């Protein structure tokens, strides 16, 4: 490989990274706008509508304001970790997008075969996302500790306890998906949900309880309302980022919203059929029309809907009490997911135990293309 090739490859990688990172940063800005408008609509008020047409320039104004504000570092704070903490929160949230497949393309017939639109089509994609998103805790933990403030510390402790607890339920609900798909590759999981019955092939049908667990755990993982105890205004002022201001403060919310997009994307990929349309192409009337819409649009549409549900949650539910939160994670979700793994596992191999039970594995085999 000559140096020119290396440079070309590096340039392509840089472009791929930019093609994902820039839209994420933009969508984070506009999700904050959408959040304010949607919650406003739900609470029968306007939301932001002053800056620009229909308030569309509000995120830019907010960003500019935060950018121009002074970054204050408390005197007793641990300077290095205080400055590093927002970065440690943001980096995992962005790095996790490296394995997310955004669709399949032949580049309008330019390529012979279809390529998966992901920076890295990793064999252990699901595990990678789990591993990287579990690193987001460090940003919060560091922020809480380095601030040298009791509110921040309590917020960080709460966040850590919460994220560790819900990660387990999340992991177990993913295990069910892995049993069904027979692969940890995210694009293979989407392919496993392809079929001639449209949305009936999606994993939301056999794994509906796991879909609920995954999404709610995702809500808790990203510290979104109603699980936003780490930043409970009433008792902790603002939780782990009390001492932050200006751009460093904005970095935390950037990380939070990026994590929210990631959870929505993962839910869409693992349970809602990824880039496949909900109805087969030969379905009367709308089938052909649905088929003409590119897969990426379907995936992003599903993701947008799930982000809307996140916002909807925030407008609907009051905040949990901490013991209720822990009870839900450990005493409800954990047994629930564990027993569902056992059910799915036994159903998968029921036919091997006795020929009378073959119908069970046949039923579940409908969703298991590896059989």
């Amino acid at each position, binding site marked *: 490989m000559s140096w020119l090739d290396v440079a070309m490859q590096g340039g392509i990688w840089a472009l791929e990274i930019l093609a994902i990172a820039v839209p994420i940063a933009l969508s984070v800005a506009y999700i904050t706008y959408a959040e304010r408008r949607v919650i406003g609509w739900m609470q029968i008020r306007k939301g932001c509508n002053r800056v620009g047409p229909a308030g569309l320039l509000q995120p830019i104004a907010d960003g500019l304001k935060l950018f121009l504000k002074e970054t204050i570092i408390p005197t007793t704070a*641990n300077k*290095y*970790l205080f400055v590093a903490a927002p970065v440690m929160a943001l980096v995992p949230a962005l790095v996790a997008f490296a394995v997310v497949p955004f669709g399949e393309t032949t580049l309008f017939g330019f390529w012979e075969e279809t390529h998966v639109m992901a920076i890295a089509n*990793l*064999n*252990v994609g699901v*595990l*990678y996302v*789990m*591993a*990287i998103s*579990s*690193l987001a*805790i*460090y940003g919060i*933990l*560091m922020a*809480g*500790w*380095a601030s040298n403030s009791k509110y921040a*510390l309590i917020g*960080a*402790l709460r966040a*850590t306890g919460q994220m*560790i607890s819900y*990660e387990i339920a999340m992991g177990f609900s993913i295990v069910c998906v892995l049993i069904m798909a027979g692969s*940890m590759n995210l694009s293979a999981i989407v392919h496993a949900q392809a079929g001639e019955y449209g949305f009936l092939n999606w994993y939301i049908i056999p794994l509906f309880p796991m879909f609920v667990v995954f999404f709610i755990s995702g809500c808790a993982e990203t510290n979104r309302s109603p699980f936003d105890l780490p930043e409970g205004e009433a008792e902790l002022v603002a939780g782990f980022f009390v001492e932050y201001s200006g751009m460093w403060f904005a970095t935390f919310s950037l990380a939070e919203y990026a994590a929210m997009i990631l959870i929505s994307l993962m839910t869409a990929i693992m349970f809602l059929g990824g880039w496949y349309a909900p109805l087969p192409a030969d379905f009367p009337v709308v089938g052909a029309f649905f088929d003409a819409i590119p897969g990426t649009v379907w995936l992003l549409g599903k993701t947008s809907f799930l982000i809307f549900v996140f916002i909807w949650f925030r407008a609907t539910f009051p905040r949990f009490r901490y*013991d*209720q939160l822990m*009870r839900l994670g450990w005493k409800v979700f954990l047994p629930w997911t564990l027993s569902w793994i056992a059910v799915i596992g036994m159903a998968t191999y029921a036919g091997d135990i006795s020929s009378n039970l073959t119908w069970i594995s046949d039923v579940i085999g409908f969703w298991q293309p590896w059989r």
Partner: protein
Amino acid sequence: MLETVFFYLFGGLAVLAGMGVVLAHNTMHSVMFLIFCFFNAAGLFFLLDAEFIGIILILIYVGAVMVLFMFVIMMLDVNRAKLREGFLQYLPMGGIIAVILLVELIASASSGVFVSDEMVQAVHLGQEVNNTVEIGKELYTKYLLGFEVAAIILLVALVGAIVLTLRERKDAKYQNISAQVNTRKEDRLRKVKM
């Protein structure tokens, strides 16, 4: 060539981070160095195409074990002056152990086992070998008994930890959450005819 560069990069950074763990004054910084060290070890696994083990290393050690470590360290009130107090007293003992370890390392390195011709060379198995599947097959067939025994030991440790730390306080008041959740409107609200 690139692989060698990355090997020395990850290896060197892992050694530096390991030294940082020992030499950092602040416990929190030590933990961060340790996490960085784990990352580099994971990088070395990736170079060997062992992506499953690499990811698991990050997922378990960095994502779970170190977080709990940090959880504890955050709560500690480390008094550095007090830690330094016994430094000279423990120095001879520590020094002897360090010298013995150094001699052992040099002896084993020069024993001839690590001659480059006789070293096992890592071979790339290529993309078609899915090492998650391979590990799963080995673990659940050939080493099933060992795997189950390890699982039971872990379970016992888990139960033991809970039993050790569980203390019920009779004077504390707890909500009965299932009673709270199962409350219906009729239990609280009664229509009275006036």
